[in-house]
């Protein structure tokens, strides 16, 4: 199954690059040796938009949430933005249950975000901390690193709960 999928991926890549190289020789170089794994690792990271599944990094009881609305920006949410999400996976005896609609603050995003000093920061995955309508976190602990930009967004409580501030 996996082998068939890999071969299919490589075939797709080959046909695409082959088509391009035939139409304009010298502009593109087709890389037949590119594996499927490499193709996925180099994919473009983008905004957190509708149907993006995010990891919950607090002890509110939810494990995975799916974004149903980004509350800021035309394209989608980024690092530090607030979203509305639906709980897709939850612990059996947590504060929030599966199917509940919650607010969340994006504390880690795979898409890079420019900092005030001109550099850019990006994280390993997309993660949220669940908050209420007032912006206070539901959980009492935050796991993993969070960016210091949350201070500008007035989420100081999340920063105090976090173990590492990047």
């Amino acid at each position, binding site marked *: 199954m996996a082998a068939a999928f890999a071969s299919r991926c490589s075939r797709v890549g080959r046909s695409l690059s082959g088509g391009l190289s035939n139409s304009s020789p010298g502009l593109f170089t087709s890389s037949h040796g590119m594996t499927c794994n490499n193709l996925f690792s*180099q994919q473009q990271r983008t905004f957190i938009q509708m149907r993006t599944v995010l990891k919950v990094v607090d002890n509110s009881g939810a494990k995975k949430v799916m974004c149903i609305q980004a509350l800021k920006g035309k394209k989608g949410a980024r690092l530090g933005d607030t979203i509305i999400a639906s709980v897709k996976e939850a612990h059996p005896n947590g504060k929030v249950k599966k199917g509940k609609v919650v607010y969340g603050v994006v504390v*880690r995003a795979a898409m890079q975000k420019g900092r005030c*000093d*001109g*550099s850019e*920061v990006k994280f390993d995955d997309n993660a949220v901390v669940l908050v209420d309508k007032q912006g206070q976190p539901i959980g009492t602990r935050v796991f993993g690193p969070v960016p210091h930009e949350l201070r500008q967004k007035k989420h100081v409580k999340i920063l105090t709960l976090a173990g590492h501030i990047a």
Partner: protein
Amino acid sequence: MRLEKCWFCSSTVYPGHGIQFVRNDAKIFRFCRSKCHKNFKMKRNPRKVKWTKAYRRVHGKDMTQDSTFEFERKRNRPERYDRNLAENVLKAIPKIDKIRVTREERHHKNRMKGKKEKLLKEAVKELEQGISLVKAPSVLQQDPSLTLPKIKVKVSQQQSEENHAMEE
């Protein structure tokens, strides 16, 4: 203003440059440019990529141990501001730089010491092998002084007897 080091190539990252990647174990990787970032994403080892500082240090091309490197070490403990100390430090920086440059030059000179003789030997060997390309064989037969002097090697009697036996 803090000048960071690129994780991949160890070059200086000035403020406003490069990209910073934070792994889930809170380890921060700073890259000076997209070249280094892409190499990191391709899971390349900087010790095996020839243009990086790590490779040059591992393979003895750059200095590894020197007292001037101690001044450049990252210190996480903040220093209490002292005007005289700051003035002395600013005066010392160019001197230390100059010392490091001269030591690096000396290191390079020592590393390249036997290179000239080696190149000369190789050139002579090449000339010996391809002398027919420079001078025609007929000319060489007429004037043997044009050829390079041949080194005579004494062969023991025992070895010549063995060769004779093998021929038979």
